[in-house]
């Protein structure tokens, strides 16, 4: 009897230990014995498509950025498996008290693939290049991420619809190894933005020689770079060099033997476009490819059950939420909002709609972002408490309310809006609401009605652009928007202040406090963080998934 008890306890301990290892490893890492990784070999990665362009400053699609991550490097990057900012081409950095000037000390002895030196001038050349993008390159289909992080350009093209002001002012090359970036306003979020591949430092000589900046507009209004920089001559400082690209067939990178850091283990990485999910899985099973991203949730069981394959989970970087537009009474009543939070059986929705690719959030941002805390008010599923709150509010039951969802669309954080909405509507009806389900096509109708404040309760969400709380809570609540229909000056001010704090610890504390405030005020109920998975052959080691997809293949190796 006693013995069985001990066995059970040790099993439980082993389970907890496994979980802990899973968590500390960022759910990444390859399985199998961690023997010394064998050097060399070719990794074939199944991409969902060809990249659009290998000039990351003009790219915003995942496949372009994935390849760019290997060829280029940024001043700062993220620690493996998290959004913590760590050095890459910059060894250290500091900001002035007012947050307007950022000094970066640069890594020495780095050369671009074309043999040109990497130095402060090269850094300034790139920043000035982005800031001076003109004409079609300013469009969202061009320098999308510059617009997200820095806003406008030196001279905005009237047709670009770019933000009026720019965060960027100028760049000073103090000496070869020191750069100062001057900003027009304090923003701590910009550092997290700089980890993204679009802020890669490219070889100025190659940018000029291969005419990266002249673009024309095609008759349908899309920017088309005229040079060959982004198609045939991408030159960065990264662990892999561009070798060749046969469209719709293969894109080959080879190891950069002159790499300044620890060189890549693989000889070659080949990206092979396979748009169909089932085809990618079978190609992985036959060994025609060694890995692929965005595994179909339906295939997870197949892969998990195959000893020759492995799954790697990418930490969530999104949030789906139920929003309240408080201009619709009685949603301005906190008790009513809390009643909704207790009424929604979010775990059931996760289990039924997301499978094992989702979790119930505690707040409006995923755990991988700094400032996330579990010390917030948690709203357990409790229909009785919900009903009690409604009855205590003195309102006449049932309360009639519109509940909106987008029709015929699937978003990463909301794979099946209709099923989610129907489940939530039935939860709400059980505690005393009379729900009127409404739907509209995602764009433009649904976004119009929800963002302009025309939908009382509605489903929406956000996938983060960069590893900073600003991309979640800042985007939602820093300015008062008709979507939420409330004015909370303290919350707005707190977010405005936090944006300017350049000290990391202070900043983290500020956002933790903000998250507590938000979850007490309850402007909406976050219901899902969805995760995605990558699949690899079992002999592939050393791949670590990043929530913001800044993944380098230099640590990857092919085992026995």
């Amino acid at each position, binding site marked *: 009897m006693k013995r069985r008890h001990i066995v059970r306890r040790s099993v439980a301990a082993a389970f907890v230990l496994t979980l802990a290892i899973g968590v500390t490893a960022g759910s990444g890492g390859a399985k199998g014995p961690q023997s010394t990784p064998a050097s060399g070999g070719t990794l074939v990665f199944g991409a969902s498509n060809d990249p659009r362009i290998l000039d990351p400053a003009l790219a915003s699609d995942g496949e372009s950025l994935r390849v760019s991550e290997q060829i280029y490097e940024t001043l700062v990057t993220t620690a493996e498996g998290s959004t913590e900012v760590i050095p890459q081409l910059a060894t250290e950095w500091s900001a002035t008290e007012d947050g307007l000037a950022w000094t970066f000390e640069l890594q020495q002895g780095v050369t671009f693939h074309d043999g040109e030196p990497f130095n402060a001038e090269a850094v300034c050349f790139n920043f000035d290049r982005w800031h001076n993008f003109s004409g079609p390159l300013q469009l*969202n289909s061009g320098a999308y991420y510059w617009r997200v992080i820095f806003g406008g350009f030196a001279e905005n093209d009237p*047709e670009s619809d770019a933000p009026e002001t720019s965060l960027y002012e100028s760049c000073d090359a103090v000496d070869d190894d020191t750069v100062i970036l001057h900003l027009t306003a304090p923003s701590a979020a910009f550092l997290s933005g700089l980890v993204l591949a679009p802020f890669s430092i490219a070889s100025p000589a190659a940018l000029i020689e291969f005419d990266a900046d002249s673009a024309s507009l095609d*008759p*349908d209004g899309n920017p088309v*770079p005229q040079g060959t920089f982004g198609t045939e001559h991408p030159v960065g400082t990264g662990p892999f060099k561009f070798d060749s690209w046969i469209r719709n067939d293969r894109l080959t990178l080879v190891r950069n033997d002159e790499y300044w850091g620890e060189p890549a283990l693989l000889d070659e990485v080949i990206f*092979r476009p*396979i748009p169909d999910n*089932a*085809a990618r899985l079978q*190609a992985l099973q036959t060994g025609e490819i060694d890995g692929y991203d965005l595994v179909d949730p339906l295939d997870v069981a197949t892969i998990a059950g195959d000893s020759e394959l492995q799954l790697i989970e990418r930490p969530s970087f999104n949030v789906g939420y139920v929003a309240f537009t408080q201009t619709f009474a009685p949603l301005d009543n906190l008790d009513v909002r809390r009643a909704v939070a207790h009424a929604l059986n979010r775990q059931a929705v996760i289990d039924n709609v997301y499978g094992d690719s989702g979790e119930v959030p505690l707040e409006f941002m995923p755990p991988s972002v700094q400032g996330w805390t579990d010390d917030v008010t948690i709203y357990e599923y409790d229909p009785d408490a919900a009903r009690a709150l409604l009855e205590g509010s003195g309102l006449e039951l049932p309360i009639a309310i519109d509940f909106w969802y987008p029709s015929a669309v699937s978003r990463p954080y909301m794979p099946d809006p209709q099923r989610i909405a129907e489940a939530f509507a039935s939860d709400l009806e059980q505690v005393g609401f009379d729900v009127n389900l409404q739907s509209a096509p995602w764009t433009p109708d649904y976004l119009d009605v929800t963002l302009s404040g025309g939908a009382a309760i509605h489903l929406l969400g956000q996938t983060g652009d960069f590893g900073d709380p600003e991309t979640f809570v800042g985007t939602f609540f820093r300015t008062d928007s008709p979507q939420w229909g409330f004015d909370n000056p303290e919350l707005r001010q707190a977010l405005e202040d936090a944006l300017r704090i350049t000290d990391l610890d202070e900043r983290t504390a500020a956002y933790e406090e903000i998250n507590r405030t938000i979850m007490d005020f309850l402007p909406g109920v976050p219901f899902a963080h969805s995760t995605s998975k990558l699949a690899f052959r079992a002999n592939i080691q050393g791949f670590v998934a990043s929530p913001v997809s800044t993944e380098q293949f230099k640590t990857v190796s092919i085992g026995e």
Partner: protein
Amino acid sequence: MLRYAARRLILAIPVLLGVSFLVFAWTRALPGGPAQALLGERATPEAVAAVERSYGLDRPLFVQYGKYLERVLTGDLGLSVSTQRPVLDELRERFPATVELSLAAMLFAVGLGIPLGVIAAKHARRSLDHVSLVGSLVGISMPVFFLALILKWAFAVKLGWLPSIGRLDVRTDLHRRTNLFIVDSVISGNGTALWDAIRHLVLPAIALGTIPLAIITRITRSAVLDVMQEDHVRTARAKGIAPRLIDRRHVLRNALLPVVTVIGLQTGLLLSGAILTETVFAWGGLGTWVYDAVGARDYAVLQGGILFVVLVFVVVNLLVDLGYSIIDPRIRVG
């Protein structure tokens, strides 16, 4: 015959014009529109209007269409939004891929279908015929993607005999001139690439050729049966001509007429791209290209691709009609 061909080609012009206008109008009617696609889904209506003005998207449809026609006639099919490459360049890569796959599939279907049909006719209403009937029914009713997945699962995943995706192994080098890989590897004397290209063709060709195979088998069977009962065959038999000679000269040749019609129609269909087969085998042909363009609101590809597919249809149909007169000299075209 030449005059006939020329007249048919001239008649194709209004067809192409009509189709191009329909496609043009239809893409303009899709929700969102190019300006919206350009600015993103949260663009303000003012910005959308500004962009539409500057690209002439606010002008009457006929004016826009005229501009488009002008460009097409100079060989400019525009640029693909999703890949930022000229549509014509993509067409040069994708059409050969489709041609190679279609021809391989038709080779499989015709090479197997005609003998099977003849055998079934010779054994009409006996067990071999019934087997062939059931086989054809299964072939016609089996969804292509399902068959493809099963073929891949069996021959690529489980047995490991054949590759499951693409046209060449990523480690096979080939100098690409025509983008017909079989042709390219023969031209460059590259035996490795030739073998690799053939291995990659087998499964998709079988998957794609199964429906035409079933149809050709059935048509051949009934055509042969019909001809076998005709007077001239009975006369030939009465004259004591060797049965094999009768089959070849008197039966098969006459029976081939409807079969050729079917082969022509099927080839035209296959050449317009096989979305499912291409998708499952990551083949990169016309079908997936045009299909993906719908989702990506890639107007240039949609317009150029569909226009080209229609042209292919017209040409294949013409070839079939010309083919009649070769098989049956009694048919005079013109």
